[in-house]
């Protein structure tokens, strides 16, 4: 039997330029329709006669308006999707580039292919820096073996940002590339990005954060599906609006730009996001190259996913005041606001899920003066076309599992908001590169509680006299229940054994190679 191949070393599955053109064409057809249907729905919803329970109505309208703003922002972003031609070739002598690979506690089998691939980058005089925050001798050995510089700082402050700043101070190439230690770069990475740096106001060039292990578990697949929507329709749109922000890895920086911002912000959970704000505020520009030029590992289990998402949610939400205060062009500011505020969506999900239960238990509902068919008539087209827009923008990669995973983790966003508002300090936690094999029900307790509530309300409703209105609310409850169950399932079922054994084999083979070397 042949040993399984590290998925990061196989060709990525990403759309070609022709496919993205087709996506854009379809979006241009769908988005105006989405807008019209949104108007149709809200014109119906926001009439005084619709007010049922005033509090619930107010909450519903607030949630719907929030989601409309998010949806409109999404449509606006996707409308501006840009497909760049290949980067211009670098003119003049090859530049020097420092490649920074920060490492914390990731296993050797994760880091080795990254370092090896980084030393093979073409198109520049590359110096690879392995930034070890754990002080492991095997990493020093790895660096030596591959001709990379091994950096170890005395005090681990500022998490990843601190590590990068430390390396920046000890290097001097005009351009800097940052790869998370699990992201194996393609040797064309610099050839595909450096050309943009010939424009003097270009601060950074971002490329997709691709999860090569998407096929390993159902959760990994769903997490990648979420990523693909961002690095597909959304990132292309942000690029079209000159508002692409840095995503922390697979990114080429101009050293001058980073230094002008005072280095990577060390007091943030999302140093990349905040650095981007500073750079755009200072008038620097950014570019997104829609081509997979490095392949990494996404979360494989619910605990890793929750940890990653919570860090992003808290980081982006805490960056909200900075976005508001920053002197940014209005388009760029709106883009940052949309990205930050996306992490408030969990509140609306919670409300939607609670409404049928409230109706069943207490008989209160937000809407009045409207029959179910009127609601269906006005809401269904808006819902369906909006969903179609998401499907198209993600080029078919955004799946039901991805959506359900987002919904099932609604509590993350709720909790993050509370923590940000209460100014509780967060801790930078590295996303685990290997999923746990067992079930992790503790990671989805809020979802389980909500499922229990919905199940109870369904049972309660069916136990009483059955009317069409009751059944309608039961159907809503079952809808939410199904979505939550699918979203929480990876945590309840645990990791698939086949994938686990495959990864173990990869790990063993990589470590063996390292030992042999």
């Amino acid at each position, binding site marked *: 039997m042949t040993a399984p191949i590290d998925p990061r070393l196989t060709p990525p599955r990403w759309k070609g330029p022709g496919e993205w053109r087709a996506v854009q064409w379809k979006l241009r057809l769908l988005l105006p329709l989405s807008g019209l249907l949104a108007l149709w729905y809200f014109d119906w919803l926001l009439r005084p006669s619709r007010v049922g329970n005033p509090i619930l109505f107010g909450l519903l309208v607030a949630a719907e308006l929030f989601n409309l703003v998010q949806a409109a922002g999404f449509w606006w972003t996707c409308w501006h999707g840009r497909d760049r031609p290949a980067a211009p070739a670098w003119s003049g002598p090859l530049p020097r580039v420092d490649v920074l690979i920060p490492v914390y506690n990731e296993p050797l089998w994760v880091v080795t292919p990254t370092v090896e691939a980084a030393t093979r980058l073409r198109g520049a005089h590359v110096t690879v820096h392995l930034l070890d925050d754990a002080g492991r001798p095997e990493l020093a050995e790895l660096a030596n073996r591959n001709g990379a510089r091994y950096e170890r700082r005395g005090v681990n402050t500022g998490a990843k940002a601190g590590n990068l700043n430390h390396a920046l101070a000890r290097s001097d190439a005009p351009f800097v590339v940052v790869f998370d230690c699990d992201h194996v770069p393609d040797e064309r990475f610099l050839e595909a990005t450096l050309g943009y740096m010939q424009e003097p106001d270009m601060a950074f060039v971002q490329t997709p954060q691709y999860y090569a292990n998407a096929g390993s578990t159902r959760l990994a697949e769903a997490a990648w599906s979420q990523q693909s929507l961002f690095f597909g329709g959304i990132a292309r749109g942000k690029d079209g609006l000159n508002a692409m922000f840095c995503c922390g890895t697979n990114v080429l920086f101009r050293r001058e730009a980073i230094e002008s911002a005072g280095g990577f912000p060390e007091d943030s959970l999302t140093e990349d996001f905040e650095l981007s704000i500073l750079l755009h505020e200072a008038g620097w520009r950014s570019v997104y190259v829609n081509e997979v030029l490095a392949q990494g590992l996404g979360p494989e289990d619910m605990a890793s996913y929750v940890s990653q998402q919570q860090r992003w949610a808290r980081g982006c939400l805490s960056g909200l005041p900075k976005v508001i205060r920053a002197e940014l062009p209005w388009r760029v500011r709106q883009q940052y606001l949309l990205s930050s505020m996306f992490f408030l969506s969990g509140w609306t999900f919670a409300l939607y899920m609670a409404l049928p239960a409230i109706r069943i238990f207490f008989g209160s509902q937000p809407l009045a003066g409207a029959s*179910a*068919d009127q609601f269906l008539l006005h809401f*269904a087209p808006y819902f369906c076309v909006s969903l179609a827009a998401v*499907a198209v923008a993600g080029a078919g990669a955004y*799946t039901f599992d991805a959506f359900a995973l987002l919904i099932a983790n609604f509590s993350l966003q709720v909790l993050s908001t509370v923590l940000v508002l209460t100014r509780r300090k967060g801790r930078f936690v590295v996303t685990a590169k290997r999923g746990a094999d067992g079930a992790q029900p503790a990671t989805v307790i809020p979802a389980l509680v909500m499922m229990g509530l919905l199940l109870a309300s369904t049972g309660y409703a069916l136990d009483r006299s*059955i009317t*069409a209105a009751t*059944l*309608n609310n039961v159907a809503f409850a079952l809808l939410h229940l199904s*979505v939550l169950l699918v979203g929480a399932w990876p945590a309840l079922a645990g990791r698939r054994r086949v994938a686990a054994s495959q990864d173990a084999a990869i790990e063993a083979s990589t470590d063996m190679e390292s030992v042999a070397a």
Partner: protein
Amino acid sequence: MTLLEGRKEAPRRRSEALAPYRDQAFMASSQAVAGLGNMVFSLITARLLAPGSFAQFTSFLALYLLLSMPGSAISAVASLRPAHIARARSVLLKLGVAAGIVLAIGAPFIGPLLRLPVAMVVVLGLSGPALGILPLERGRLYGVNGYTRLAASLVAEPAIRLLIGVVLTFMLGAVGGALAVIVAGYAALEVARGRGWWASTRTTPAVIALPNGPAVAESLEVQRTRRVTTWTALAFLALVIVQNQDLLIANRMLAPFQAGQFAVISVLGGLSAFATMTVPLVLLPRAAGGQKGGLAPALAITALIGAAIVTVVAAAPGGLIDLLFGARYRGVAGIVVPYVAAMALLGVTRVLVAHRCATGAGRSSLALVAAAVVAQTSFILAFGHSTRSVALSTVAAVTALTVTLGAAETARTDAVRQRLLQLKRVDIRARLRTLPRGVLIAAAVGIAVRVVIPRGLWLDEATSVDQARMSFGGMITNLRTTDVHPPLYFSVLWATIRVFGSSEFAVRLPSIVAGVVTIPLLYLLGREAYDRRTGLMAAAAGSVAPIMVWYSQEARMYSLLMMFGVLALWAQVRIVRRGAGERWPWVVYAAASIGLVWTQYFGALQIVVQQLAFLAVIWVRHRRHEPVRQLALGWLVSAGVIVVFLLPLVPFAHQQFMVNQTAGKGFGGPQQVGSAASVGGNAINIYAALANVIWAVWGYHSTEVMVFLAALWPLGMLFSLVLLGRRPSKVTSLLVASVLGPGLVMFALGTVKRDLFDIRYLSTAVPVLTILIARLVTAVPRRALTIGLAGTVLIGSFVFGLEDQQYNGANPRTYDFRGALALVNSRAQAGDVVYYDPQDLREVVQYYAPDITLTPLTAASASIKAARRTHHVFIIASPILMNGVADADTLSHELVAWKADKGKLVLHRDLPNVEVWEFQ
């Protein structure tokens, strides 16, 4: 061979391959120009002359053509033997002169016989010398590829007609026009003989030349050529009779104005027939010379020209006649399209005859054409009492001839011959064994479920039976004048009743059979579109799908419609998936598509979707630089065949529409009987759409159940969410479009006429939806266990739906007329009176109580009062079927009147959607 040589040869081969198309197109264009010129001349004469004179003039033209009849055959013969016409020229000249003299002398007798002026017959006689030689010279030119001169000769004729004909017609009337026609013929002859500037036109050697072999071989070849020429001449002769005899007979049989009307039809039909006149003549020498590949271009060009002309005429027949002939002839607008289509088909027939004659099947071709002549004559003599019936006689004869010849010619091709031989050897039982056992089980379950019919006939079924019990002609007339459906299903039912009688089971047999056949078809389509597992799931689901079972048990056309719909989609998917090379899927596709519309007009919606799908596939493949020629050709031919076979339905449908509108039952009219039961409301709204979806999947249910099911719509959101990230395959897009396209159109139509947005008119969508659901069940779950579980849930829900649909007496679509009439039958005595309300119940009550005198309950019923005093009175009423308040008022009035008379209510029985009262 070097690479360079290969490069040089490629264009030459392509040029050779395209030569038949080029030559045919050139000659057809010339003919078109000539035809257009002649048409313009006819139009001018139509304007200049009174109807009677114009009829005479067109009769003259027909006679002229009839006399040219041998000429047409002569052209064919001369094209086969261009080097041997010298003697023939001399003989024909003598014969022509003789014929002219005979005509001139016999004019005083012939004129009155044909209702033509004597002078006109004399003029006709003048044409004698040219009549034979002109086609001979033209035939020679066909034989030597002298197409340029031929074109000049063709165009010269109308040019001269127009130059002098207008003046002569104006001055001398119909006779002047006739004179111009004769002069033009001589001018065309001069051009064909080549004495003028055109004589320099170069010609290439004859396409066929007798081989310079041993004397015996030459003798055999000469014999073969003689046989070919003889059969060709005779067959072409017979074809001219088919083309023209209706006009001559109509002129004799019909009143002058009707004859004028037929002349108008004939002129337009002639345009279609003459437009392709050159095609068989170009084909003949090539085919006789052994050149392959001439038939397809000839047929393609003929079909293309025919279809173009028919399309133009069909676009606005009334307007065209107004424009060309004046509004007085507008009455024939309804029949002109099928007639023109028939003449276009005659062009196809000529090509087929030419090819068959040239390739050794002349005798059988002549036999077939002769049979058509006899049939056409018989039809006209038997039924030709009006312009319409004469035209329809020709349409029927020509259509039958074309289909027969086409089938005969197809059977001659090697592939088809092989296939037919294979078919003879096919072991049906062996074929059945190749179907998975699951499909056979599904079919068995399907049969079992379908033959257990818990309900009796309802209104529409009884109407179908009533119509099918008439004579065939009577049924067609009844359909045309009182119904809104095409005749295929009724014809099947008509035959079924003749064979099996008209018991409940017998009249539902066609639907049961179609319903059962649909089950394996679902498997085939599911397998072809996706995989074996989906096919099996679709067949299993289809066997118990409530709405499919419902219509398999109804003596109406919807089960047949579903079967044709699945068949057409299966054939299309197979063609697109496996390549367009096989012919039989095209035949299946075209036949099923034709069957769709002949069964139910709304079947056309699926055809439109499928045609667009073909276009999309061709476009996409073309953009990808994939070969599309075969697919495009197949598509064009099949589309042409479909159009040709649907054209005869156009006037039928048009008349039905007009009758329906006039009767106030069409658009803008009241709701259809039973519609109150069908949708659960009169407004077209989102719930109506939802209700149709529920019916399509889970069948018909009581209003209460429907309200509950509709309330579950949020689960539809779950369904749409599950679809996220599932990019539909091309075939899924086709299937979804086959559901959504017709659905949206019917929804739109429903806003104008509410009844139309009903699942029965969207029957084609039901099996497709079943396959899509089967696909969802087999594709979304990731594990076999989950698939099994999902499948069980799906089929379980179908079984629940089926049970409720079939046995819940509150189902608003269930009518127990059988029970009601059985009750009346068991209680009624001699002298008792049975009334029914509304009047639409006539057929159904008569079906169940043929021996009882039944009377519609009307407000003015006088007999009921008398009957009340002495006998028992039964009233059978179906409130749900009552149209408006009038019927209901009548019933209420009668019931109140009875109470006022202090009569005794003996019995009141409330059956599903039917009530029975017995008064004493």
